[in-house]
C-alpha cells in the first residue's frame, strides 16, 4: 500500500491546477451523475484519503479507461490515483463474487471450453441471463463472447518452442491473451499468419492471464500474482532477444507499463518483458519504417470505421492501425470521433453500470451504424464485443484487414 511508486503517483496530485480538462474529456462523467468525475475522485478526493476509512464509494464508477491521465496538461496521474484508491476501497469493503469471477477470464475460459456448445447456449439463453443478472449482477444484455472450444494454446502446441538467442531477429513471440485463447482463436491465427507473411517465425509459449481484469476490479494482490507468473513465462524469451507481440492491446499495455506503474510490480522478469513488448500494429508499422513490411497487398474495397480504444491510446504510439490500413489499396478507414465505447474491460458487464456504458458509447455506436459499413475495426477485444453487440455488425481486429489484403484467407 505504501509502495514507493504509489507515493509517486499520489504525489503527482500536487500538479493539479483544477483546470478541469480531465472532467470535460471523461466519458463516464458525461454519461452519468453517479460518477463525480476524474478531478473530483482523483487529485481532489485523494487529499481526503489515507485516514481510517474510505469515504467515497462513488469512485467505483470510474471505468479505468485512463483518458484523464492522457489529457492532463499538468501530468497528474489521475487514472493511476483512482485505480489505487479503488483497490483500497475493494480491500476495505470486500470484493463481490461477481467481481471475483469476471476478473478471472481464465476461470470462465476453462469452465466453458470443454463444454463450449452448452456454455454458448446458456450465455445466449434469456432466462439464464436473467438468472445471472439476479444472482451475480451481470447485466442480461451485456455482450459476452462465445467459447471457441479448443483453446488457441492447444491448437498451436507445435509452436511452443524454447528461446533461441542465436536467431532473435527473425523469431518473435506471440502473446495472445485470454481472448484469443478461449474466444477468438481466429484472430490469433490471423495474427500469426500476418507475422509469418512478413518473414517472421512465430513462437507461442505457454502463457497465462496478465491480471488486468483483476487490477481494474481492485484485486491488486491477485493481479500482481498473475502478472508475475506471466512475466516469468515470457522473460526467458525477452532475455534471449525475442520481441513480444500482442493482439490484445490492453493486456500488452499491462505488461508494458501498467503492472509497474499501477500495481507497483518491480521484478526483473517484468522489466525485460516490458522492454520487448509491442502492440502488433505498432510492431508492423515499425517493420514498415525499416522497409521490412511486405507491402504487396490486394485491394480491399471497403469503407470501415475504426475506433482506437482507450488502452491502445495508453501505448502512446499514435494510431498504427490507421497507418497500416492506409497501406491497403481500396480500404478507406476513418477514425470514429469518440473516446470510449463504454465497456472498459468488465465495467459494462455489471448490472449497475451497463446503462452507463451504453450511454458512454452511444455516439460511437451511432457513427458506426451511420457509416453503413458491414463491419468496424478496433484493437481491443472487449471493445469489439461491445461495439459489435451495440451496432449489430461484426467488429474485427486491424490484423484481420491486413490478413484479407495479403489474401491469406
Amino acid at each position, binding site marked *: 500500500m505504501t509502495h514507493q511508486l504509489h507515493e509517486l503517483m499520489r504525489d503527482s496530485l500536487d500538479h493539479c*491546477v483544477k483546470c478541469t480538462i480531465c472532467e470535460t474529456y471523461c466519458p463516464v462523467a458525461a454519461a452519468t451523475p453517479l460518477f463525480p468525475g476524474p478531478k473530483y475522485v482523483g487529485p481532489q478526493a485523494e487529499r*481526503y484519503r489515507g485516514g481510517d476509512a474510505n469515504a467515497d464509494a462513488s469512485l467505483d464508477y470510474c471505468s479505468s479507461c485512463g483518458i484523464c491521465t492522457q489529457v492532463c496538461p499538468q501530468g497528474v496521474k489521475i487514472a493511476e490515483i483512482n485505480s489505487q484508491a479503488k483497490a483500497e476501497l475493494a480491500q476495505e469493503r470486500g470484493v463481490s463474487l461477481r467481481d471475483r469471477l469476471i476478473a478471472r477470464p481464465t476461470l470462465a475460459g476453462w469452465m466453458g471450453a470443454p463444454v463450449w456448445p452448452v456454455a454458448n447456449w446458456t450465455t445466449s439463453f434469456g432466462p439464464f441471463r436473467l438468472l445471472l443478472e439476479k444472482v451475480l449482477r451481470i447485466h442480461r444484455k451485456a455482450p459476452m463472447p462465445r467459447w471457441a472450444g479448443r483453446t488457441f494454446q492447444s491448437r498451436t502446441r507445435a509452436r511452443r518452442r524454447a528461446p533461441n538467442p542465436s536467431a532473435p531477429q527473425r523469431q518473435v513471440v506471440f502473446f495472445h491473451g485470454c481472448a484469443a485463447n478461449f474466444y477468438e482463436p481466429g484472430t490469433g491465427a490471423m495474427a500469426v499468419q500476418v507475422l509469418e507473411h512478413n518473414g517472421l517465425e512465430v513462437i507461442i509459449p505457454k502463457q497465462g492471464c496478465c491480471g488486468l481484469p483483476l487490477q481494474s476490479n481492485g484485486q491488486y494482490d491477485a493481479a500482481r500474482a498473475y502478472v508475475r507468473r506471466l512475466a516469468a513465462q515470457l522473460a526467458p524469451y525477452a532475455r534471449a532477444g525475442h520481441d513480444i507481440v500482442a493482439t490484445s492491446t490492453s493486456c500488452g499495455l499491462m505488461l508494458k507499463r501498467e503492472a509497474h506503474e499501477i500495481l507497483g510490480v518491480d521484478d526483473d522478469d517484468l522489466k525485460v518483458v516490458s522492454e520487448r513488448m509491442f502492440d502488433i500494429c505498432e510492431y508492423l508499422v515499425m517493420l514498415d519504417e525499416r522497409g521490412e513490411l511486405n507491402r504487396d497487398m490486394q485491394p480491399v474495397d471497403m469503407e470501415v470505421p475504426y475506433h482506437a480504444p482507450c488502452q491502445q491510446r495508453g501505448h502512446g504510439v499514435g494510431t498504427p492501425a490507421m497507418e497500416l490500413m492506409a497501406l491497403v489499396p481500396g480500404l478507406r478507414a476513418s477514425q470514429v470521433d469518440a473516446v470510449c465505447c463504454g465497456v472498459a474491460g468488465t465495467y459494462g458487464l455489471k448490472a449497475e453500470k451497463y446503462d452507463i456504458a451504453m450511454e458512454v458509447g452511444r455516439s460511437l455506436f451511432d457513427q458506426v451504424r451511420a457509416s453503413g459499413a458491414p463491419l468496424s475495426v478496433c484493437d481491443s477485444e472487449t471493445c469489439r464485443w461491445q461495439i459489435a453487440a451495440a451496432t449489430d455488425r461484426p467488429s474485427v481486429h486491424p490484423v484481420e484487414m491486413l490478413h484479407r489484403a495479403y489474401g491469406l484467407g
Partner: protein
Amino acid sequence: MRGYRTILVERVDLGQGTTGRFHGLLHSGGRYVVSDERSATECAEESAIVKRIAAEAVEDTGGLFVTTPADDPGYADRFLAGCLKTGVPVQEIPAAEALRREPRLNPGISRAFEVQDGAVDAWKLLWGNARSAEEHGARILSYHWVTEVIREGDRVLGVMARDNRAQEMVRIEAAFVINAGGVWAGEIADMADCPGVTVVPGKGIMIAMNHRLVRTVVNRCEHPGDGDILVPIRTVCVIGTTDVKADSPDDYSIDRAEVQQMLDAGEVIVPGFRQARALHAWTGARPLFKDERAGEGGEDTRHMSRGLALVDHLRRDGVSGFLTITGGKLTTYRLMAETVVDAMVEQMGDARPCTTADEPLPGSEDGRHYWLGSRLAAQEEAMADDQLVCECELLPRRKLIEAARRRPGMTLDDVRRALRLGMGPCQGGFCTYRATGILHGLGDAETERADELLLTFLQHRWLGLEPILYGDQMRQACLDDWIFQGTLDVEHLPVAVPA
C-alpha cells in the same frame, strides 16, 4: 456554564487573532518536558480533556518524537526522563517501526517515541465554544472593537466598543470584565490604567503543504527549535514554526528567509519536502507574558514560558472587577478560562464550580473525533443534487447559503473561517467568484459590496501565497491570475480595494 450573563466582545471575527493563526497541534506536552515542565504537565492534562469535550475539533493523530541525524542524540534520554517526571505518556518504539508507519520519514532516524499528540482545528473548536456559550445565554459581539475600559475609582464598570459594521459606539456595562486579549492583552490592560502588563509578540511562521506527507504529528526529539514539527491537519500538513520577537502584534509580514528555513527544516523530517507543493504561508504572534512589575523574562521569546498567566489587577494595581488572562497555548485554553473565572468567582465571593472539563461542546456529544474523510463522506450523500462552491474543500452551495442566511453580511474571510472557503490547493482561484456570485444572488451583497468582497478576499489570499510561489503553486497562481485578470478583468472593477 456557571450561570452568569456574559458578553464576548471581539474586534474582528472569532479566530482572527492568534487562535486562527496557529500550528494546529494539540500538544501532548512532549515538547516541553525538558524546558518547561509546568507547561508539559498542563498540556498533558488539558489535551486529554480537549480530546473529550471537543472531539469534533480534534483528530486523534497521535504523535512521534524522532531523533533525526541533525539532532543531539543525547536529548532522547533527557526527553524520556522528562516525560516520566511531568506525566506525559510516552513509549519508545523501534525506529524501523516508526518508518513503517511513516514511510516518508527521514530514514536516518535513530530513535522514536510515541506520544499522544493530536491535531486541532481552531475554527471548529471556536465555533463549538461559541455555540456552547450561546446555548448558555452568552452574547457574542464580533466586529466590536474595545476602545476604552470604563473605570470609576478603583472599579472597572465595563467597556466602550466601536461597532465596526454599524459604525457606532456601544457602551457595555458589566459587573466584571475579563481581558482575554491574547497578545493584545497589554493594550487592553493599559486602557484600564493598569500599565506594565507586557505581552511580547513571539512571531512564528507556518507553511501548509498540499497534502499529508505524514499521518501522525512528527516532532524532532530536540530542544524546542525552529521548524521542528510537522502537523497533519485536515487535508494538509503544516511545517512550523519560528519564534522571533515582533515589534507589533499586528505584524503579519512573512520573512522570505524564514520560508526557506521552514522548507529546509521540512527536508530534515521528510526528505524531498521541497518537491512537495506548498499551499499557503502565514504568521501568528504568541502571547508571551512578561510582567514589567515583577521584572522577569528576557528578550529571547523561544525560552519564555508557554505557561498561562493570570494577572490579578486587584492585588497588583488595586483595581477590582478586572482580570487579565494571557500567555498559555491553544491546548490549555480551557484551563485558562477555568483559572480566570475561578479568580473572578473568588473576587465576587461567589462559589460556583467549573464544569467545562465535563460538558462536551455542541457537536462533540458523541465523542467521535474528526476524521480525514468526513467531508468526502458528507459530499457522497449530497453529490448529485448540489454544486460544489469550493471544490478543494468540498464546500457545497447549500452550506454557503445556509451560513449566509444565518449570518448576513459576511465577508469571504468570514466564510473562510466558518466553512473553509478558498483554503485548498487553488487558494480561491475557482471558488471566489462563485461564492461572490451566490452572496450577490441571495441579496446579501449588492454589486459594489460584492466587487469589494471579491477583491479583498483575493488580496488576503495573495498575502499568504506570494511568499511561497514556486513550483506547482506558481503554476496555480498563474492560472488563477489568468482567470481573474484575463477573463474577469477584476483590475477594472469600479471599486477601490480597501486597505
